[in-house]
């Protein structure tokens, strides 16, 4: 077991950020954390990266208790934050050399290691450029290089592709998957991009500090039976009530669209249209996506917020 989080709770004043949360992770695993803003993802990652101490419960990385032996944990994790941590007024190489020194590397060993990591991430030619003059994609790569300097066993990535264009994002994921293949690094990544979540081995869906679903992307999508029919009607609320009285299927109203789980959508659609004469504006269906799972699992939450 590489990571064990047991019954961790954390609050900021009256606000409960994490509520009795547990998770476990092995080597080579890529675990994605999905959740709306304020769901507790960032708090969890702060706890894993030893920036905050858990107020309640236990975080163990490689067998070390993060609260009691933070130094041992820090030596084994690499963290890529949402924000830039490289000094903009220093070059890539100067930044990495400084960071290596924080990890206790020095002399020839440090220089060789910095060169090696820069080579791996394709930033070696740009090493003498100041960080402020780099593009967003290169800056992110330099950030990963920083997190990899000490060959960590676990990488913690907090929305690492924020602000990247699609090509840079693909590059980033190639680097991450390569790392897992070569070094069996375990990776925990928070994201709100479903496309990225698809690349994870397993996903944890968080909402209000509680885990609402967990599984591989396929397992999660399978929690939606069959397909998803999306129906727009003149009066969505009335249409929903009318449909609920006539059909025995999972239905909910999300952002003004009626959302029906149907085992055989192509048969269901004509019946739905017939049931609402003159009311339907548009109707269609698609195979379930992670986005659907996410909307389903967090819809109660959002309804509460909109009231």
């Amino acid at each position, binding site marked *: 077991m590489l990571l064990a989080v047991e019954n961790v709770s954390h609050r900021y004043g009256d606000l409960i950020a994490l509520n009795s949360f547990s998770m476990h992770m092995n080597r080579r695993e890529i675990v994605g954390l999905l959740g709306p803003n304020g769901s507790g993802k960032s708090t969890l990652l*702060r706890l894993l990266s030893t920036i905050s101490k858990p107020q309640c419960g236990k975080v163990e990385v490689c067998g070390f208790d993060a609260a009691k032996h933070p130094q041992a944990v820090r030596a084994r994790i690499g963290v890529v*934050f949402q924000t830039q941590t490289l000094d903009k007024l*220093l070059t890539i190489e100067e930044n990495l050399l400084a*960071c290596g020194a924080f990890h206790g590397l020095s002399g020839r060993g440090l220089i060789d290691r910095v060169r090696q990591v820069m080579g791996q991430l394709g930033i070696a030619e740009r090493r003498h450029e100041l960080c402020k003059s780099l593009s967003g994609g290169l800056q992110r790569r330099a950030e990963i290089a920083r997190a990899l300097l000490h060959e960590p066993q676990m990488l913690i990535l907090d929305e690492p592709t924020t602000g990247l264009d699609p090509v840079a994002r693909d590059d980033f994921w190639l680097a991450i998957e390569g790392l897992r293949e070569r070094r069996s690094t375990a990776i925990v990544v928070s994201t709100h991009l479903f496309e990225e979540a698809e690349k994870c081995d397993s996903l944890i869906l968080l909402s209000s500090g509680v885990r609402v679903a967990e599984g591989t992307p396929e397992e999660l999508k399978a929690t939606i039976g069959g397909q998803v029919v999306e129906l727009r009607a003149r009066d969505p609320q009335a249409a929903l009530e009318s449909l609920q009285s006539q059909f025995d299927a999972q239905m909910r109203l999300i952002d003004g669209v009626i959302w029906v789980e149907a085992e055989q959508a192509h048969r269901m659609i004509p019946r739905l249209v017939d049931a609402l004469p003159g009311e339907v504006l548009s109707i269609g269906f698609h195979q379930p996506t992670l986005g659907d799972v996410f909307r389903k699992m967090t819809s109660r939450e959002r309804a509460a917020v909109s009231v």
Partner: protein
Amino acid sequence: MMLSAAALAHRELLKFWRDKARVAGFAAAPLLFWLVVSAGFNDFARFYSGSIALALMFSAVFSNMTLIDDRKEGFLAGVLVTPAPRAGIVLGKVVGAAALAWLQSLVFLLFLPLAGLKPGFFGVLACLGILAVIALLFTLVGFLCAWRMPSTQAFHGVVNMLLMPMWMLSGSLFRFGEAHPWMKTAMALNPMTYGISLLNESLGMEGVFSTLLSLSVLAVWTTGLFGIALFWVGRSDHATA
């Protein structure tokens, strides 16, 4: 620990070198103050120590402004997730910033002949040492202010409120012996008074307190503030990312 401290201090100096405009003003204003006031009183020696101290205090405290940026921009969080010892982080940041402040205050020494002071070689050496201690002390003051401060604007406000009285009550403006009794008490509580006393002594003027007492007071203050800084950095919850 030394490795992390050296890396951080090196970074401060590198940044300073690349961003020279940042600090050019700190020595200029106290120099102008010294020239004008000294010419006005027609006594160039009297305000000399106080003016160096003024330049040093401000540049030492304000060189910590980068700490607020480090915290906001995430650099600090990047350091705190590494196993770098917390003492090394404080030491590196403080020594780097203190060295910069110290270097800037050296401009004043070029004006020694104009002040009519002849401290001799060992006097200058002692003066350099004392300036380094004062720089360290005030860098720590700045470090502690910057660690908690939400913005550079707030930092400016608080620091000015703290530094001006400390400077005015240090014996830079008026002599300790001539002050009102309650003023004397306030001055005796101010670590800067002891710094000025030492500086005056090293430059061949009269010090208010004995060298040993002054050095001890400065050492106790510096160590105490370093301890507080260490304690705060250890509770790293305050770093954002």
